[in-house]
C-alpha cells in the first residue's frame, strides 16, 4: 500500500489533470452527442467520476484528507441523483414510451 501511494506520487500532477480533463471532456461530448436520456445520464456520471479522480489526486498530492471526504459527498449525492434521475426517466418513459430527449419539445419559444 505504501509503495502504491509513493508510486502514485511519482506520477506528476499535471498528468492527472490532463487525464481527468480528457475524461471529463469525453463525458461532455457524450452528453452532447447522445439522444438517449440514460446514456446522457451515464456521461454525466463519467464527468463526475473524472472530478472524483482529480479530487483524490489533489488530496493525495497536498496530503490533505478533505479532498477525499469531498469525494464521498459527491458519490453520495450522485447516488441520490441517480435515484431521482432514473425515477424521472422511468416516469417519462411511462408517458411517452420513449427516452429519446428530442421527443420532449412540447415546451418551447
Amino acid at each position, binding site marked *: 500500500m505504501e509503495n502504491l501511494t509513493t508510486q502514485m506520487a511519482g506520477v506528476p500532477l499535471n498528468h492527472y489533470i490532463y487525464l481527468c480533463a480528457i475524461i471529463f471532456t469525453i463525458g461532455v461530448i457524450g452528453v452532447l452527442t447522445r439522444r438517449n436520456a440514460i446514456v446522457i445520464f451515464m456521461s454525466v456520471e463519467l464527468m463526475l467520476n473524472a472530478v472524483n479522480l482529480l479530487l483524490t489526486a489533489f*488530496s493525495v498530492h497536498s496530503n490533505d484528507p478533505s479532498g477525499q471526504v469531498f469525494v464521498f459527498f459527491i458519490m453520495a449525492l450522485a447516488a441520490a441523483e441517480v435515484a431521482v*434521475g432514473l425515477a424521472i426517466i422511468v416516469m417519462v418513459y411511462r408517458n411517452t414510451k420513449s427516452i429519446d430527449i428530442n421527443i420532449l419539445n412540447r415546451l418551447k419559444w
Partner: protein
Amino acid sequence: MNIIITISITAFIVLYAGLFKAKKALLPLTVVGLLTALGFTIGAWNSNAIHFGMMQTDNFALAFSGICIVGTLLIFLLTQNYFHAKSDNVAEYFTLILFALAGMIMMVSYKNMAMLFVGLEIMSVSLYILAGIRKRDFASNEASLKYFLMGAFSTGFLLFGITLIYGATGSFDLDKIQAYLVDNSKAISPIFYPGVILMMIGLCFKVGAAPFHFWTPDVYEGSPTLITTFMSTVVKTAGFAAFLRLFAGAFGPLHEFWVQPLIVIVCLTLFIGNVTALFQKNFKRMLAYSSISHAGYLLFSLIVLSANSENNVLVYAAAYTFASIIAFAVLILVKQKTGSDSFESFNGLGKKNPLVALSLTVAMLSLAGIPLTGGFIGKYLMFLNVMGDYQMLLVAFAILNALVGFYYYFKVIVAVWFKDGADIELVTPTQYKLVLLVSVAITLILGIYPAIILNLI
C-alpha cells in the same frame, strides 16, 4: 445551524403527518416550523457564529435565510386548495419544499465549498422531483427531465471548478481561498482561473443567466405554477446569495479577471430575457423570461464590488421575490377559473376583482421598476452601484432593456384594466388575500421608505 435543523425536522414531521393522512395538520405544522426557524434567524442576528468551519451564519446569511423563509411561508399559504385539486399525497410537496429550503439555507450560509455543493444538490434534487411531481402531465415530465439532465450536467462543471480551485489552493474553505489569492496574488496557480470560470458557469446555470438560461422558460412553464413560484423567487434568491458569497467574498481579489466575462453574460441575459419576453402570449412563460432579465439586473451587483453590493442584492431580491409572488398568486387564481394562463385570460380582470387586479398592477409596476415601488429602489441601487465605476454604456444598455420591460409588464396591466373580456369573478381564498396584502404592503414600503432595509447587512 438550528435553522436548518428546525426546517429538516419540520419536513420529517410533515412527512409523517402525511402518512397518517392528517391533511388538515400539514399547513399549520409547516407554518409553525417555519415561524420557529424565522425566530431562530432573527435570534441569531449579529451573532456571526461559525459552525464547525463549515457554515457561517453572518448577517448576510441570516438576511437571505430570512427572505427565503418568509417567501416560502407565503408560498405555503398559497397551497390552500391548490394541491388538493391535483393529488392526494400533499405531504410530499410540503416535505420536498422544506428540504429544498433547508438546502438553500446551507447555500446562503456556507463557508466551505462542500456545504455549497451539498446545499445545492439537496435543493436541486428536491426541485427535480417537484418539477415532475405531476406524474401524468407531459409538460411536467418534460420540465423535470430537462431540468434534471441540464442540472446534473451543470453540476459537473461546478464540481470540476471546485476541484481545480481545491487543487490550486489545497482547501475548500472560502477564507483560506481568499487568503491564498491575497497572499500570492503574483503567482496564482494557472488552474485556479479555469476553476473560477467553471464555478461561474455552474452558478450562472442555477440563477439562469444567459447562455445557461435555456432550461428556465421550459421548466418554469412545465412545472406546477406553485413550484414555479418557488423556483423563480426563493430558489433564485438563494442562488444569488451563493453566487455573491463566493465571488464577492472568496474570489473578490480576482475581480478584474472574471468581471469581463460577467459583463458579457449580464448584457446577454438582459437582452435575451427582455426581448424574448416581449413576444410571449403566455403569462407564465413571460414571467419566466422576466426572471431571466432580473437575473441580469441582479448580476450588476457583482460587476462593481462595493461595500453594499450584498445589500443591494438583498433589496432587489426582496422586491423581486414579493412582486413575483403576487404575480404567480394571481396567475394561480386566474388559471383555476379559466384553465388557461395566457394573457387573454386576464382581460377585464379589473372590473370584477379590483383588489386582485390592483395588487397585480402594483406587482407589475414593481417588476417594471416604477418609482414608489420596491422594484424601482432595487434597480436604482443596481444602477447606482454600477455607475460608481462609471459603466455608462452598461447602464444605458440596461435602461434600453428596462424600456422593453415596460412593454411586456404593461401588457398585463393593459389586459387587466383596459381590455374587456369575459367578466370572470375569481374566488379569492382568505389566505390568498393575506398573501396579496402582505406582499403589496412590503412592495410599497420598500418603494416609499426603503431606509428600513438599506443597511441591514
